[in-house]
């Protein structure tokens, strides 16, 4: 894709609040993004900050599990669905021709039905000369809030079988934005990949931590996410998880260096980390003196020093 317009980049970095945002992302799935996000959030909270952790992996959200939290305060996310009134329809067929998803069907004159997928674009409403379309709200997922005191978790979930994940991420980010002033720092956990959900999740981050692992797959996918960060001019740093794996760390260092990013070699997969992972307690709390906990405390200290006035 061509370079982005300066307006698009500016809009991407704009937030309606002053609270700094740290994004945790990484391209490849299963490299430990959520582990890093959860433990970083816990370590920041241990520093005395009021932290919002936002799980934007609306396809497969797991931060609540790793924190051992019960989600509450559900707000459904809905999208407009058109409902056609045969009484008012003049059978002009304009809605049929503007629906670019070809989702509308007219089995008989004056009888339009939504047959296929609808992304809620509302183009049909714009062309209907007879005001014959009513709005209905269709649920596509929900967002939750949980936790207490210094660490608040916000989570979004796409309802299984639906495709509008990006909209759930957008609503989730809006909810956090509305309450951002209550926090000193926001940590965002993204989905794997480089698609629109990931881009939406990373909007306005001051720093993106790209988590990877030293395998050929990890390097390959790291390159993709670093390209995305570069495209949106996001400041990034690389965190190497599973440092015990036999792959080439120098390959990762080279990829990061090419984009002027630093590399943090952290976290071999040790017993304590696995313990924390499966028991739903951040390692920072469960084994505060483990090397993993120390690593996160160190990163939290540096982030606090840089982003918290």
């Amino acid at each position: 894709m061509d370079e982005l317009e300066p307006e698009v980049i500016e809009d991407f970095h704009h937030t309606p609040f002053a609270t700094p945002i740290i994004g945790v992302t990484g391209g490849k799935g299963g490299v430990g993004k959520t582990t890093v996000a959860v433990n970083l959030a816990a370590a920041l909270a241990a520093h005395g900050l009021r932290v919002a952790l936002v799980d934007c992996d609306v396809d497969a959200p797991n931060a609540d599990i790793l924190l051992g939290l019960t989600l509450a305060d559900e707000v459904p996310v809905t999208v407009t669905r058109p409902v056609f009134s045969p009484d008012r329809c003049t059978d002009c067929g304009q809605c049929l021709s503007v629906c670019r998803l070809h989702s509308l069907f007219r089995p008989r004159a004056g009888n339009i039905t939504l047959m296929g997928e609808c992304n809620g674009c509302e183009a049909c409403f714009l062309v209907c000369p007879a005001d014959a379309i009513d709005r209905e709200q269709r649920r596509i997922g929900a967002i939750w809030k949980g936790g207490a005191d210094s660490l608040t978790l916000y989570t979004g979930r796409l309802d299984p079988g639906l495709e509008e994940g990006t909209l759930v991420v957008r609503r989730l980010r809006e909810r956090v934005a509305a309450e951002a002033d209550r926090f000193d720092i926001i940590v965002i956990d993204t989905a794997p990949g480089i698609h629109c959900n990931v881009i939406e999740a990373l909007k306005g981050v001051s720093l993106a931590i790209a988590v990877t692992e030293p395998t050929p797959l990890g390097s390959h996918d790291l390159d993709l996410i670093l390209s995305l960060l570069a495209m949106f001019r996001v400041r990034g740093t690389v965190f190497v998880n599973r440092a015990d794996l036999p792959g080439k760390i120098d390959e990762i260092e080279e990829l990061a260096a090419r984009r002027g990013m630093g590399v943090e070699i952290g976290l071999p997969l040790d017993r304590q980390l696995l313990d924390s992972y499966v028991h739903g307690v951040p390692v920072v709390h469960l084994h505060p003196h483990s090397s993993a906990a120390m690593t996160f405390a160190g990163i939290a200290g540096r982030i606090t020093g840089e982003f918290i006035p």
Partner: protein
Amino acid sequence: MKEIVILSGKGGVGKSSLTAALGTLLGRRHSLVLADTDVDAPNLHLVLGAERLESSPITASEKAFVDMDRCVGCGLCTDVCRFDAIIGDSRPVIARYSCEGCGACAIACPEEAITIRQVTNGRLDIMAAGDHRVVSGSLDIGASSSGRLVDVVKRRARELAGELGAGLILTDGPPGIGCPVIATLKGADHVVLVTEPTPSALSDLGRVVEVVQGFHLPLGVVLNRADIFADGRGQVLRYLDAHRIELLAEIPYDPELPRALARGELAVTARPDAPSSLAIRALGKRISDLIQRNGPGRAISLKTMT
């Protein structure tokens, strides 16, 4: 022709490694084509050490374009866009990563300054891994419409399987449950879900199971790294039991696997007697039987290699 799709919900549980191993094993008995629909982060070719034969751009996305000579800056386009894809105060700029190409802005524009055009959003690669072909899609950086990219990959894989007389398409799917997963499931015959014995993986498994069941597709589960956490294994087995889902295999954790991967080897061929390789071989046989076990309405049997 049969299409078997491998999914997991959670990423990084071993989909690509398992697809590569199964492809290699099943490829000895069946003529097959491999497909990678994880267009965000396609990895199957890396595990297989596949070589690219051809590569072409895919134009499977639509975006709005504004003719600035006609634009009068009325802002109606920004008002009607339901995807927050139009930014800018005095002149509209399309944030392409948010634009769905729905055309609402073009309808609203009184100056007819906006057109919807097709744009390239990825690439389609055809690769060779030994005797087998791999069809793989990759999303361009910053592009969208990954589901439509998946449609193209699948269509090409079917065409190629037709040309080669292959009776099986084995697809390495994307993580999650969103549009590329749904596009991957369309037209599939059987689904293999990979998971591991952790609470996160089980939670994600439950979500992808719901999606697959919505398609009324037969499914089975492979428990990878089955021995890393006994309690987690118990939870997965209880879940499968409660939902009457078939457990196809338990594959033990193999610390050699990452080393084999780093060397560009497939453990299942390099170390055929390792416990994990034996488990995958048994799984391969089981899937081979599954392919031949006919579901309703699917009577086409596989062409068997001689």
